[in-house]
């Protein structure tokens, strides 16, 4: 399984390199020194305990979001709704976490996380059900559900909101100590959420590549028609894939709230769910790739401030870099499909899906999965 990642890794690293190169041109054009800027960026991300901790902190929600996006994508579903699922999962975890149940951490923390799993999962399953029932395109429904989630959050912890805490903030009460994710290294902000994220990545890998359900998900994503011919229920599979996707996203929100923020704030997410799309794509929707991509993006985010103060390059450059990475990954994938690299082709690369069968095209990732594997039951 891991043997197939090589070419994907090359093209993802290539895409990041291209994005950094174009970014360097932008830095030069705006009158700064790209070497100074990138060196500061690198130092700010990896140069010491604090930068490393901040990189991991920034990567944590992105790992969850990227995994969430990937699970749905594998089933042929383009889950733009990670953001909303993450927000509502965080809200559920923050509210449960703030209740003084008098429970030990061993019970309270799992309870709060479970609330995030349920709420995030249901919010994610909804577009799956809508698509299975009436064919409503998940991209549109999830965009709408993101806005609804934002409104629900604004209402729930806004003035006179039912879940609002006693402080005059758009937030819940602070989480009880028994519901927080412990910090890992002294005073540094890195918390146990990153460990949860790695466990989630391992579980998702097992689910996708070692279980019947994972096989069904990938089969449906590769070809809805072929999967149906093999007796795999499409609607059921995409609904459960979206449920799992929402659960992962919700857990990401919970980790952010209980590990970093200490309470649920309205608008706590600066768009993790949208960056997650990039993470999934750059990581080729493989759990290992997602973890690596999240670390790269986390490093970009944590190094951005250092870059701004050392080189004067505004930290918004990082957002441009992230957009460039997405475009470069898409271009590399297209190059593979259009056989620009003839002669260096991996089995399956360049194989075209039937024209117009978008449900097949979305889930197809020929560079990792040359052909469907038989289920190992």
């Amino acid at each position, binding site marked *: 399984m891991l043997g197939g990642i090589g070419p994907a890794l090359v093209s993802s690293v290539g895409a990041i390199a291209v994005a950094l190169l174009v970014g360097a041109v932008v830095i030069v054009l705006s009158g700064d020194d790209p070497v100074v800027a990138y060196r500061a960026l690198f130092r700010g991300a990896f140069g010491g305990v604090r930068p490393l901790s901040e990189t991991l902190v920034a990567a944590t929600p992105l790992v969850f979001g990227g995994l969430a996006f990937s699970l749905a994508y594998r089933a042929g579903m383009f889950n733009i709704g990670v953001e909303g699922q993450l927000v509502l999962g965080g809200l559920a975890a923050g509210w449960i976490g703030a209740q003084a149940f008098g429970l030990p951490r061993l019970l309270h923390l799992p309870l709060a996380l479970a609330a995030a799993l349920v709420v995030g999962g249901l919010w994610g399953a909804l577009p799956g059900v*809508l698509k299975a029932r*009436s064919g409503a*395109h998940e991209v549109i429904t999830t965009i709408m559900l993101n806005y609804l989630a934002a409104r629900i959050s604004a209402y729930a912890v806004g003035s006179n909101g039912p879940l609002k805490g006693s402080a005059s903030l758009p937030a819940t009460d602070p989480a009880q100590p028994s519901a927080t994710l412990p910090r890992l290294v002294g005073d540094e902000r890195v918390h146990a959420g990153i460990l949860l994220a790695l466990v989630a990545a391992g579980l998702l890998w097992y689910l996708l590549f070692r279980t019947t359900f994972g096989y069904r998900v990938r089969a449906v994503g590769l070809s809805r028609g072929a999967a149906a011919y093999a007796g795999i229920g499409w609607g059921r599979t995409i609904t459960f894939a979206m449920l799992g996707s929402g659960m992962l996203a919700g857990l990401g929100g919970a980790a952010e709230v209980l590990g970093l923020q200490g309470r649920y704030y309205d608008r706590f997410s600066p768009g993790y769910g949208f960056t997650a799309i990039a993470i999934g794509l750059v990581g080729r929707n493989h759990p290992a790739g997602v973890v690596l991509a999240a670390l790269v993006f986390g490093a970009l985010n944590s190094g951005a401030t250092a870059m701004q103060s050392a080189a004067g390059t505004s930290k918004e450059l990082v957002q*441009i870099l992230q*957009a460039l990475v997405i475009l470069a990954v*898409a271009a590399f994938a297209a190059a593979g499909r259009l056989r620009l690299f003839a002669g260096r082709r991996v089995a399956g690369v360049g194989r075209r899906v039937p024209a117009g069968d978008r449900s097949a095209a979305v889930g197809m990732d020929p560079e990792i999965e040359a052909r469907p594997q038989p289920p190992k039951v």
Partner: protein
Amino acid sequence: MATPLIFAAMGGLLSERSGVMNIALEGLMLIGAFSAAAGAHYTGSPYLGLLIGAVAAGLTAIIHAVWCITLRGDQIVAGTALNLLGIGVPAFLLQRLFGTAGRSPAVDRLPSLTSGLNVLVPAAFLLAPLVFYFLFRTKPGLRVLAAGEHPRAAESVGVAVDRYRYACVIASGVLGGIGGAFLSIGDVSFFTTNMTNGRGFIALAAMVFGNWTPFGTLGAAIFFGAAQAVQIQAQATGVPVSKELIIALPYLLTLVALTGLVRNSTPPAGLGRHAAAD
């Protein structure tokens, strides 16, 4: 309130009717809004600013077109990237050009024709019949529809599908850019980061709710715009209307429309398909 929605939604309509999904409207509006404000700042003329905003967004849309049509990349991936660019590029340039974070210097606004209505407002309302006439009564328009419904059939009778799609995607950028410009140099007289505040997605919702037809889209855009206006009025006069409910209304209605409770939702059949044979 409806004007920017109408422009952006008509842009989205043209793009999607030609078969190219365009979830990048939000980013295109932001590029248009920023470029218009920057253009008005440097030229001193809001009309030149409007032109610059439209051209800049049109040029940005070319990225979408190249990725979606020439490279046959995933249309949603490209749209997502453009939306990120729409947030990042203006923020970066604000810092670089004006040394400010979040807000551009004040510029001249488009002059009002009558009480607060500038030239873009009537233009927006003329746009729907214009788009309708173009799509359903002219030869190029019908070819656009053919490209969107069945690209391979269109190709087989000699329609240059990719060329029509390029034109439509660029047009959607121009219209989205004008919609954005209306916000920065029509509504107010400066650009702020993320000032579209989701209007690109509401425009998308209007197009879906309007079932991909010009007049349906116009109606939906007016309705969504009115919902926003009512909300602002209600807040100003203290009418106890639930603010959250009204803001959420366009999204809820779109979900309802999509699930077919209102009527059948029929996107162009060739949306996202490519013309070229394998």
